[in-house]
């Protein structure tokens, strides 16, 4: 009996120890990288709920505070579903140069297995990661969520809730996913060109900013614009929101390194430097031109710097970030004040003035300041360095996204208008969105 047992145990041991190594899986899942990416995902989601919700809601009038928060909150819910069903597949499925595919419809089937390290794309240009696809999927989802949420700033106080939901679904699928594919998928034509966008200068900020401008122009100015007192309801809320955005941006930029290492560290560093420099620049500009530095100016400056450093965050050094921050602070100040008044459009919360303008600034300056060593890989040991050619590539990408977003947004607004309309009636706008769209009051 004992001998049989021993033999059985030996046999079992033999089977276990001899279990053949499965065919080589490529990079393994790194728990450090994955832990950071899980944390980054949470940070970026926090940027929308409640970061952007508070940031925007604090700036609108009391009668629209809840509705403004609702826009960010519901976009988080809607885009989460859309992304899962089809958005991710269209953005990060292999597809062709212009759009992904339907290989990940409903997220049925994870490439190589749900518990394997994810590789984006295939063939020679594939990007290997050390995180599971679920984490990559989720991290990207938070970007897909915040982008349409940014647009809401342009049409604050006057868009129908039904129109917002429909427009968001269409925009996420038809504008966001394709652009994300162009810039971040190895098959994407902008990626292949060699244009740089580390964390979303084009995909998120220019895209949303330009869409915002088009929305502001199509929907028209708020009733009483230029005449009524539209002072912010509670800038305290906006400051809290800005704080959440600032810290959350660490996940946005440093998380775009897709790992926890030196690249993430440098991205974090330059993000902070740019935000700080831009805050100071905006404050000084305001102090000089308006006589007093305002709280709203400070938080707007911070966001301006964060927007501008977004595409550059994985490619530049701290001293470049300082310059980018200063330029962004001044450009954002100009975009949110002089430009708006000059052109006369009602971009209520400066979706274009800050995100559009500073996204453009950041994208272009990435081409100027990129420091090769930061993006060096064994395959490309020189990395991407700033040069006139790189600047032109950045310009090309910027213009392409600008034009696509503008035309696409315009079309989708027309479609939405036909189906549910776009703008609330004048009486509803005077009464306020909280009561008319949601039947609720702040207090």
């Amino acid at each position, binding site marked *: 009996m004992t001998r049989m047992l021993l033999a059985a145990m030996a046999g079992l041991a033999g089977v276990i120890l001899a279990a053949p190594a499965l065919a080589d899986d490529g990079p393994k899942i790194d728990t450090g990288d994955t832990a950071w990416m899980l944390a980054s995902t949470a940070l970026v989601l926090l940027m929308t709920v409640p970061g952007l919700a508070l940031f925007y809601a604090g*700036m609108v009038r009391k009668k629209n505070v809840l509705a403004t928060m609702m826009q960010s909150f519901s976009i988080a819910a809607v885009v989460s579903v859309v992304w899962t069903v089809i958005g991710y597949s269209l953005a990060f499925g292999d597809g062709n140069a212009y759009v992904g595919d339907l290989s990940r419809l409903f997220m049925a089937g994870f490439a190589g297995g749900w518990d394997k390290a994810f590789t984006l794309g295939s063939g020679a240009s594939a990007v290997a990661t050390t995180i599971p696809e679920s984490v990559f999927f989720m991290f990207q989802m938070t970007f897909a969520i915040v982008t349409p949420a940014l647009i809401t700033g342009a049409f604050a106080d006057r868009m129908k809730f039904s129109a917002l939901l429909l427009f968001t679904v269409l925009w996420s699928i038809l504008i966001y996913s394709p652009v994300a594919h162009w810039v971040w998928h190895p098959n994407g034509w902008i990626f292949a060109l060699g244009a740089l966008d580390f964390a979303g200068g084009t995909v998120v900020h220019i895209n949303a900013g330009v869409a915002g401008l088009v929305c502001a122009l199509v929907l028209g100015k708020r009733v009483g614009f230029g005449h009524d*007192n*539209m*002072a*912010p309801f509670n800038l305290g809320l906006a400051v809290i929101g800005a704080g959440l955005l600032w810290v959350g941006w660490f996940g946005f930029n440093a998380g775009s390194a897709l790992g926890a290492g030196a690249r993430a560290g440098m991205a974090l560093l330059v993000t902070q430097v740019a935000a700080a420099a831009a805050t100071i620049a905006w404050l000084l500009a305001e102090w000089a031109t*308006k006589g*007093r530095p*305002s709280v*709203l*100016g400070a938080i*707007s400056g911070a966001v301006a710097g964060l927007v501008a450093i977004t595409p550059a965050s994985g490619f530049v050094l701290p001293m470049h970030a300082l310059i980018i921050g200063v330029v962004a602070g001044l450009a954002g100040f100009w975009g*949110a*004040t*002089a430009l*708006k*008044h000059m052109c006369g459009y009602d971009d209520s919360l*400066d979706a274009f003035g800050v995100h559009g303008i500073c996204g453009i600034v950041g994208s272009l300056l990435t081409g100027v300041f990129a420091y090769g060593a930061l993006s060096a890989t064994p395959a490309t040991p020189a990395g991407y360095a700033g040069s006139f050619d790189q600047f032109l590539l950045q310009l090309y990408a910027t213009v392409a996204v600008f034009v696509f977003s503008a035309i696409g947004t315009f079309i989708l607004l027309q479609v939405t208008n036909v189906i549910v309309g776009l703008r609330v009636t004048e009486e509803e706008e005077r009464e306020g969105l909280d009561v008319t769209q949601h039947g609720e009051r702040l207090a």
Partner: protein
Amino acid sequence: MKLVMALIKPFKLDEVRDALTPLGVQGLTVTEVKGFGRQKGQTEIYRGAEYQVSFLPKLKVEVVVPDELTDAVVEAIAKAARTDKIGDGKVFVLDVERALRIRTGETDAAAL
């Protein structure tokens, strides 16, 4: 009985209250209000957009007093609330028909 209604600058409340107590005034009602008179308000600037804020925060102080105390109360409030700058406020005197203390049922002068 008279209702003395005063619109004063908010930071003057304690002084006004301190001026009324020695006169025998036993209670008053304070409401936060917004208003403007000749004090114009100011320009607030948000993201480069200027807003004329016409309404300024004020306090409305109301006290009901016996007829014979009215003049002294009006003068006391005016003196305590004065800063000699525009926006000091105004005092109005209205007639009161009846008064009742809820707890005891006392009426008119006994209720004050």
